[in-house]
Every structure is written in structure tokens, then in C-alpha cells.
């Protein structure tokens, strides 16, 4: 903590930033003391990213002052920010997969270091902060957690006085999150200030000293997170009461989807081969698959959706039929629907309007008939989807790419649910989606389950899986664990299983 006399490490006064149609930041004040872990909390679109870009010099504010250690500065570029002592760890890592750890770090440094000196410094920093990292290792085989370590070490090499972390835990296992917090606490103890951007309330309560909450581009409050409950923090963030989704116990019905002993190589050189995967999914239940992305999620989804074919017809069974060798369109006709994690470009065609994006998968709802696209029916379907799932957009003729991530996700989830699937696959249903939209999507999935459909959810967010799933399995290194009822499955067990340490129960 800081003494009252010392100036704060960073002080923002009345920062405003306008874009063509929106005010991203509206007169924001923010102070970060030395050695403080300061949370920046807010829904998507609340202005967190813009504010961080201002601090990191990636964009210039229209109005307002920035003070760095008590001195007024104007930060014109990220390079200048780094010279001042501001480091940023981005949510999406920019790593060249064909290079080693040391080469990747060397590329991003502003100063030139000899390879040996660099390796020594990487070793020193990684040992000091508990971030094990081999400088000579090629990065392509690394897990997301390891890649994040590369990013953090890269920032720490420049001895920053302020470290900005943008949603750092969204891709980490629970154990990796704890390790990261340990590192951050150690940094803070040495006097480094940390700006921690997140919408995960329990993490903020656990880690952060102070929280500034943003809503619609304005500061809606500051708080000591430890003195609040997640519910009161959420209220500050959303500006109203949050509904809670409820999962009532329910007797599952007949088997809708069965994956039996599925092994599948990978087409992607950095992908993960599936090994002997078996899974049963019944009508009226939601089964979750936990695990860190890159452990076979992509391959498993492609094998179930039919984008890739299995070797044996019986490896995938859908509503009692062998479909392992049927292409995606035929599986859709049997009642399979799918919400992919990649929304723009896969779940929706960016340059087409929403009505056409309904026709994309709407053949089973009669939107394509006799070789013709029925434009009127597609527009009506899109309008109904927009209404039912409160998608914010310019009507059914708005281009998919004009929607925000959360709204597009509501639209895609809504579109697939309104096709009345017997089996719904959902991958990362609420990635980058704000709290209220997440709840709406969760409730929609639960309603679908209550109507008797079988739902398979793949997610990296354990909280999400615990909130909506009847059973959870873990996918690690291309193998899938048994699916265990949530009440019998501790989060720690899942964390252990994520490393691949699980055995199948004898059948």
C-alpha cells in the first residue's frame, strides 16, 4: 500500500474517447497506487479495452490527462508506454509458432540482446517469479498456459512498473490460475502495480485490492472487492438485478448421441488426435466437456458435427442411427444442430445479412425448398430469432459482421435452438459474452434440455459448466474421461483430470 504523500503510479483524469457512433470512455478517473492490484471490471463494451489502449498508448484520448508517477505525460505509442515502464499482456498472444521461446521474446524487445544474455535473463526472471520456461523450446507445442508465461516473461524482462493483464485467466486451468495469482502477488509485493481486467468476479475478490467498475463507458463505482459479494459487484457492473438460471433435476430420456471408441487423427499439424473417445448423451440432459482448448475439442466437434468423417459408421450414433460416415448436412437432417466457438466466419457468414445467415442452416426449418432459398421465410425466421433472444441489431437485414460478439452469439444460439434440435452441440457458449447475455444463453440451453433435447457443451469455464450441466467429462490430450454428475465431481478433480491423469471406470 502507498503512503498518502507518494503520488499514485498512474492517475487518469477525465479521460474521454469517442468513436464514430459511440462514446467508449466518458470522463473516466482512475488511480492506481504503487504495488496495488487494481481490477478493472465491466461487461463487454463497457470501455475497458479502450481505456487500456489509452494507457498503453495504442490510441489517443480525445480529452483528459494522464499522470505517471505524479508527472503529466501523453503516451503516444506502445513503445513509449514501455519506455515509461508500462507492460501489457494481451488476451490473444502474438507468438510465432516456428520460433523458440527466446526468439519470440527477443523479437518483441525494444533493446537488442545477444542470445546467450537473453536466455540468461529469461532464466533469471522465470525462476524469480515462479514461471518455469525453457528458452530453447519451440513454441508450437506449448499449451495456452505456457504461451501466456512467454508473454508475461516478455513483459517482465523490461522491468515494468505497471503491468496490464487483459482477461488473463480465460484460458487457464484452475491450478494454472492459482499459479498466476501467486506470480502477480509476488510482483505486487515488489511494488509493481497491476491493472487486472476481468469480468470474473470471484477471481477479482480473491486477488485484487481495489476495483473500478465501468458501465457504458463511465465509472459506475469503485469498491474494495473483498468487502463485497459477487452479487453486489455484479449489480455495479450490470446496473440492475441479475436473474439466476436454475437447473431442476430431471429424469433423462433415451440416448440421443453416442460416440463409441472414436479415434481420429488430425489434419492440423498442431492439432490433437482423438483417442478412443466414448460418450453417451441422453435427451433431457446437458453434458459438459471441460478442458483447455487444444486438447482435441476442435477435432471432437468436427467428428460429431460431420465436418470430418470417422472411420467406422458406428463410431458416432445419432438418434439410433449410425452416422459416422454421413456428411454434416445429413446429420443436420437427423436433428443435429451446432453452435461453434468461432462465430464470425464459421457460425455466421460475416458479409451476409441475418436472414441469409438463417438460411445457412435453416433447410430443416423449410427456409430452403425445391432448390430455392425462401427469402420471406428466412426473414421471418430471423425476425423471430432477433425478438426471442433480444439480439441488438439493425433488423434482419443487418450484416452479421455489424453485430457485437455477444449479440452475434445470441443470434447463432437462438437460430440453432429455434431449429428445434434433438441434439445440440455448443462450443464455448459464452466466450467474450457479457454477463446478462451469458445468463440468457444459459437459460435458453436449460429450456431446451427441459423440452427434452440433448445438449453437449464444450467450455473452458468451469463455473459455466457447473451452472448448467447435469454431468461433466474432461477432455485432455485427446482422451475423454467418464462423465460424472456435477454433485459428485469436485473442481480439484477436474483440474487433475485436465492434466490427463484419469482412468475409465470398468464397464
Amino acid at each position, binding site marked *: 500500500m502507498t503512503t498518502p504523500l507518494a503520488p499514485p503510479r498512474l492517475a487518469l483524469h477525465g479521460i474521454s474517447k469517442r468513436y464514430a*457512433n459511440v462514446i467508449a470512455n466518458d470522463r473516466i478517473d482512475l488511480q492506481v497506487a504503487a504495488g496495488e492490484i487494481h481490477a478493472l471490471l465491466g461487461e463487454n463494451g463497457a470501455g475497458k479495452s479502450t481505456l487500456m489502449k489509452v494507457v498503453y498508448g495504442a490510441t489517443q484520448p480525445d480529452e483528459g490527462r494522464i499522470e505517471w508517477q505524479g508527472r503529466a505525460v501523453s503516451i503516444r505509442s506502445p513503445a513509449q508506454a514501455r519506455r515509461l515502464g508500462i507492460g501489457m499482456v494481451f488476451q490473444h498472444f502474438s507468438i510465432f509458432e516456428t520460433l523458440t521461446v527466446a526468439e519470440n521474446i527477443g523479437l518483441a524487445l525494444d533493446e537488442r540482446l545477444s542470445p546467450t544474455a537473453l536466455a540468461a535473463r529469461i532464466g533469471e526472471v522465470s525462476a524469480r517469479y515462479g514461471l518455469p520456461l525453457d528458452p530453447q523450446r519451440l513454441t508450437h507445442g506449448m499449451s495456452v498456459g505456457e504461451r501466456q508465461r512467454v508473454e508475461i516473461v516478455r513483459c517482465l524482462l523490461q522491468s515494468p512498473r505497471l503491468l496490464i493483464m487483459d482477461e488473463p485467466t480465460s484460458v487457464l486451468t484452475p491450478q494454472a490460475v492459482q499459479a498466476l495469482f501467486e506470480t502477480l502477488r509476488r510482483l505486487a509485493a515488489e511494488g509493481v502495480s497491476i491493472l487486472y481486467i476481468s469480468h470474473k468476479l470471484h477471481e477479482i475478490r480473491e486477488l485484487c485490492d481495489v476495483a473500478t467498475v465501468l458501465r457504458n463507458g463511465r465509472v459506475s463505482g469503485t469498491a474494495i472487492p473483498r468487502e463485497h459479494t459477487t452479487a453486489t459487484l455484479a449489480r455495479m457492473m450490470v446496473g440492475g438485478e441479475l436473474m439466476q438460471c436454475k437447473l431442476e433435476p430431471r429424469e433423462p430420456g433415451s440416448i440421443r448421441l453416442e460416440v463409441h471408441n472414436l479415434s481420429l487423427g488430425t489434419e492440423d499439424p498442431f492439432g490433437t488426435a482423438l483417442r478412443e473417445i466414448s460418450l453417451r448423451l441422453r435427451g433431457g440432459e446437458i453434458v459438459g466437456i471441460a478442458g483447455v482448448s487444444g486438447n482435441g475439442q476442435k477435432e471432437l466437434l468436427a467428428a460429431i458435427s460431420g465436418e470430418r468423417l470417422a472411420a467406422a459408421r458406428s463410431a458416432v450414433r445419432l438418434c439410433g442411427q449410425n452416422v459416422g460416415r454421413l456428411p454434416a448436412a445429413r446429420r443436420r437432417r437427423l436433428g443435429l444442430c451446432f453452435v461453434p466457438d468461432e462465430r464470425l466466419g464459421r457460425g455466421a457468414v*460475416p458479409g*451476409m445479412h441475418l436472414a*441469409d445467415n438463417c438460411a445457412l442452416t435453416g433447410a430443416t426449418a423449410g427456409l430452403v425448398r425445391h432448390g430455392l*432459398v425462401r427469402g420471406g421465410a428466412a426473414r421471418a425466421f430471423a425476425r423471430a430469432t432477433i425478438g426471442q433472444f433480444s439480439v441488438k441489431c439493425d433488423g434482419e437485414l443487418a450484416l452479421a459482421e455489424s453485430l457485437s460478439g455477444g449479440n452475434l452469439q445470441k443470434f447463432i444460439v437462438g437460430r440453432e435452438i429455434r431449429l428445434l434440435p434433438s441434439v445440440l452441440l455448443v462450443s464455448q457458449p459464452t466466450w467474450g459474452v457479457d454477463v446478462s447475455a451469458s445468463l440468457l444463453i444459459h437459460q435458453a440451453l436449460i429450456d431446451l434440455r427441459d423440452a427434452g433435447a440433448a445438449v453437449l457443451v464444450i467450455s473452458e469455464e468451469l463455473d459455466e459448466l457447473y451452472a448448467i450441466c447435469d454431468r461433466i467429462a474432461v477432455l485432455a490430450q485427446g482422451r475423454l474421461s467418464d462423465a460424472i454428475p456435477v454433485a459428485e465431481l469436485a473442481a480439484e478433480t477436474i483440474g487433475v483430470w485436465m492434466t490427463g491423469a484419469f482412468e475409465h471406470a470398468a464397464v
Partner: protein
Amino acid sequence: MLPFDRTVWPLRLERRSKPSAAMRVASSPLAVLAMLATCLLLFAALGKDPAAAFRVFFVEPVDSLYGVGELMLKATPLMLCALGLALSYRTNVWNIGAEGQLTVGAITGGGVGLFYGAALGHWSPAVELAAGVLGGMAWAAIPALLRTRFHTSEIFVSLMLVYIAQLLLSYLVHGPWRDPAGQNFPQSPPLPDNALLPPLFDGARVNVGFVIALLLAALSWWFGKVSAAGFRMRVSGLAPAAAAYAGISERRNVWLALMISGGAAGLAGVCEVAGPIGVLQPVISPGYGFAAIIVAFVGRLHPAGVVLASLLMSALYLGGESAQIELQLPASVSGLFQGGLLFYLLAAELFIGFRLRRVRARDA
């Protein structure tokens, strides 16, 4: 440091919140106007009277019925090839071998007229046209097969097949199909009269191919707008991953795109042989199949745009010829016009998605 000082540069490119519909319509006409203005300035710099040059270039070639017929005649193969190519490019299938498919269509269609024309009587033109379409399709089937089977790039395969088709034609007219009465000229005997496509109207050489091209433009518009197959092709072109996700077969789209563009190019070839040329000779096309690539893009890959762009390109060919004769300008003026057109088109297209905004002082 930054390449230029942002405090001095007063304008900045800014992404529009949605693409401008007005600019989408206006970009091609703006490009044409800018191209005209540039070229007229250039003529003035060369000491030619711009008004006279304009007249020589754009008015004189079409001030007679014959001239209008020539405009339509030259536009026909461009339009046919470009319609198919536009559809193919919208599907993300990069057939750049329309010139080869045109040549093979000329060989098959011309061959039918040559050997069976007399026997077929007044059915001959229809059978020739069908044979030309099939010939173009067969030539386009090679890149289709290789891409769907072995993932070869259709760009290279279709381009290389252009030269093979031209050599095949050359072999035929130098060898087995050479006119015995032709004094060793490398060309076939003339097609029998009943195998020729009659002119659309007296005093011109344009034939039924122009009408077919217009009908195909209308059909192509309908196909892209309403049909499920056209929709699937569009999805493939815009977002291949979304197509795979929705269960759209890539193989079927590749085949359709190459069959349609190959067939249309083959039709263009037979319309030349059974139309203005009347014999098979080593060179059938002065590069229509390649110029059609420019036409397709100037027409913004839209059938109506392709119709207008092929007329424009045809006018540039005719104007270039008359400028050479009357103004003693070099033959490269046609290329200058084509290049200028493409240049301004690409520049104008930028403003569909972006706009220029004056930077306020405090932004910088």
C-alpha cells in the same frame, strides 16, 4: 518512428460502421470517370485535342449501325467468359483459364460444324453451340478433378491448360484438320454456310451469341439471388469455414463453378468460330478469356455489372484501334485505358468500407 507526422496530415482513413450502399453502386462509374479524365489529360499533354480524342475514341467507332454491331460482337465473348468467371470467383474458385476453355470450345464446336455441319442441316448451329459448351466444360473438368481429388490449385492448372489448348488447336490446323485446298495456310476448310451463326441484323456481324449472353446474365442474376445452389456457392466464397459448418459440399461447389465458367467460355469460343471467323485458325481469341477477368472485377462480380463492363471493355478495344489509325497513338493506349480503369476501380472500392475523415487537432 511513424512514416509521416500525424499532426501535419489532415485526413485519416476510418472504417465505416457499415459498408456504404451508395459507394457500392457508384464505385465503378466513378472509376470510369476518373479513368476518362486522366486519359484526356494525357492526350492534352501529348498535344491532341481532348475533345477530338474523345470523339475518335468513344463516338466514331459506334456512330454507325455496323459500329454498334461490332461493339456487341466484341462484347459477346467478354460477357460470356466474364459471367462464368464472376460466378466462379464469388465461389472462391479461381478459374483463370477461360482462354483455354474458350479455345477448346472453339475446337469442339468448330469441329462439329466442319465435319457434320452439312449433314445436320439447319440444326447445325444448335449442335455446334452444345458441342462448344461441352468442350469448355471438359477442359474445365481437369482442374476440377485435380482440385477435388488431389487438392491441386485450380489457378495453376487452369492457366497451364490455356497453353495446352492453344497448342492442341495449332496442331489440328497445321495437321489433320488443315484445308487441303488452303495453299498450306494453317487453317481448316471454311465452315459450311448452314453451320454459321446468322447475323442478328443486316449490315452487322454480331450473332445470336450476344442474345444468349444477355439471357445468361439474367439467368445468372436469378441463380445467385434465389437458387439454393447459388446461395451455397456464395457462402463458400464468403466464408469457407461457414460452408463446411453448414454442411455445404466444397466438392460440389468447385465442380459447379468450373462447369459453369468452362461451359460459358466454350460457348464464347464456338460463337467466334461459327460467327465472325468462320474457320478454325491458330489464333481464335485476342485474349478475351484473360480480359474477361478484368471485366468480371470491373463489373463487381455482378451479372448486370458484367454486362456493362463487357460493353465498356469492348468500346476500349474499338476505341484503341481507331485511335491508332486516326491519332497515330501507339497500340498501348488500350492497355493504358484498361490499367487506368482497374487502378481507379481498386481505389474507389476502398471507399465502400472506409471513409476519409478530417482529423481534429486534439486527435493527433
